[in-house]
């Protein structure tokens, strides 16, 4: 009887974990700024289902087909998450590498413009961008060409005039990768 309960509990845990992250698109933060929440709003408006976990670990990728990594360093966000810059860099490297190894498409987004640049954010940009299959940058965030310098060979960098405007390149990219509105 006891064994049955344990097995059922384990099954329930597995099912609830997979139910929690069931969408084709998974969002995570790179730097713990609130920008990841804004991308979720844009996706919602596009009627594209996405799961979001700012502190996503490699084993949380579930059955997602696309990982959207939203880059932006925030001391406040890191503090609230109880981690430091180095821990965040380690987490991001592990998640993005695992995603690529598992065959997921990785989309790196920087939506904060000029205001979301600086030493902290730049460290996250330089860590995440080389692992992206595609990059979307809001105007003002790439005036010095940091994304071209960091991106992999032949990786497309799309631009948008503002956060709302990312819906265009986001829709185009996700559609190419087989994700469409529900």
């Amino acid at each position, binding site marked *: 009887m006891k064994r049955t309960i344990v097995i059922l509990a384990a099954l329930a845990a597995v099912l609830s974990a997979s139910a929690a992250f069931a969408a084709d698109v998974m969002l995570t933060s790179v730097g713990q700024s*609130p*920008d990841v*929440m*804004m991308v979720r*709003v*844009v996706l*919602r*408006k596009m009627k594209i289902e996405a799961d979001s976990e700012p502190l996503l670990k490699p084993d949380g990728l579930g059955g997602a087909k696309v990982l959207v990594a939203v880059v932006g360093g*925030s001391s*406040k966000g890191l503090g609230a998450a109880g981690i430091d810059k180095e821990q965040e860099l380690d987490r991001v490297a592990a998640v993005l590498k695992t995603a690529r190894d598992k065959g997921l498409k990785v989309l790196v987004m920087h939506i*904060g413009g*000029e*205001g*979301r640049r600086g030493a902290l954010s730049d460290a996250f940009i330089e860590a995440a961008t080389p692992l992206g299959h595609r990059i979307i940058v809001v105007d003002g965030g790439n005036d010095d060409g940091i994304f071209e310098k960091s991106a992999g060979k032949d990786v497309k960098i799309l631009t948008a005039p*503002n*956060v*709302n405007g990312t819906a265009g390149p986001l829709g185009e990219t996700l559609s190419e990768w087989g994700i469409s509105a529900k």
Partner: protein
Amino acid sequence: MRKAIVAIAVLALVLAAGGAMAEVHEVYSKNGMVSSAHELASKAGVEILQKGGNAIDAAMATMLALNVVEPNASGIGGGGFSTIRFAKTGEVVELDYREVAPLSATKDMYASEASKKARESVLGGKAVGVPGIVKGIFTALEKYGTMTFAEVAAPAIRLAEEGFEVHPMQNQIITDEFGKLSKYSPGCAFLPDGLPAEAGTILRQPALGFAFRLLGEQGPKVFYEGEIGEAVVAAVNAAGGNMSMQDLKNYKVLIQKPVQGTYRGYSIYSTPPASSGGTHIVQLLNIMENFDVGAMKHNSPDYLHHLAEAMKLVFADRQKYMADTAFVNVPLAGLSSKEYAKELAGRISRYDVMKDVPAGDPWPFNESARKAYLGGGGNKHISTSSFSVVDAEGNIVASTNTVNFFFGSGVIVPEFGFVLNNEMDDFAQNPESVNAPEPGKRPLSSMSPTIVLDPEGFPFMTIGAAGAMRIITAVSQIIMNVVDFGMAMDEAIEQPRIYNPAGGGKAGKLLIEEGISPSTVDYLKLRGHDLDVQPFGGFFGTAQGILFDHVRGRMNGGADSRRLGVPVGY
């Protein structure tokens, strides 16, 4: 704004103290001036002056306009302090419309680990103190003004209904606070279509304009006993708080004597408790008076060393003794006494850096009975808004107002579009602290709207700042920049600053703003200071002020480039 700015002399001086640059824009006028953290708010105040209003009328107009164009920092969901000097009598009064804890407050309400983890003192309904600013405005107008609320609110209503252009800095602030805004107020005006208002777009706040119209028509009762109050209580409680209409009905404005001190013969008038600001500005200046500051080079290693050491002593005392004097016996006279400051100055060595910084003992310098106290610590957020107004008659208002953190608790009253404060976070979480929450108690503040008179008793300067505990250090440094180093108003404001806290008997890190010479930084390190250099910006406080030039018969305004500050004169 018909030729409102009669005389603006823009001096684009570069502060070449080393490294970072800040442009200095001095503004001069003959008849009146408003210096606030937003040009449209300064213009709103000047509009009222030009219509015949006095400095008090203009200050209330500026305050309401700031609620519209800088809604993240201050507004009718918050509180503040105004220091007012009347030209005819020379009398100075302090208007305290600081928030109070609701009747449901208890000393241990934020003491549990669960409460700390959920950040209940910062986010949502439990963080909201009973707002005082509306009663403050009506009290000021009724006692000292010449216009009605509806008249002084007219520019703010226009700005709210017609809208204003969102500045990139404002977009950044909304973006930074997106998490709490989208959680507690997803339908608010600052998140059109669910996303932060973009720079360059027009932000309209008709609900806020409607609130101002209702206040103009029905008076403060609509806020404290009527429709607006009911909406406030509903919003607070829906977000997990426990406020009642009785809390609003009980709210009282305090009219107090300001804290008074002197610095090299100049008289300083500033805020008494529940703000610690005025007392500790006087204390810091009193300590520095024991050193020949004028003979030291500005922002030189010697000056900054003495200043940093003095700051530590002040903050050690602040933590131990300061709280709402309605609840706690505070040695105010001792803290602001010259003799006590001399004793503290004696603890500063030219060559040694204090690591252990126990609080001093001001009680022997105080006439009141002795008690032992344990105060709360400070925090590091950037917030609040300060402005100064002078009218043609010479009446002066220095006013500092806040909703505490930017966008306060994150709760915005949906029907009326104003931000509710998170002032409860200014209480200590430790229930043993003198600054622990209690029903009706005012949380400890650092706000310090300050008026300075010259040694002959004539108005010399009005100055105030935003920036939590850095208000104390910003205002003090600006006063020394003018008095000891002979700077003009904006020049004094734009200088890079330092901040050195202390608490729990230990020195905090010396924080140095970019712009101070790297060789000075190296020298301070060699001397033994544990320091960090931080970017030039709002962390070190954002100040607005007006300096009087009696020889030329004009006013000299300055406003901080660390914010969007602009002085406007006529």
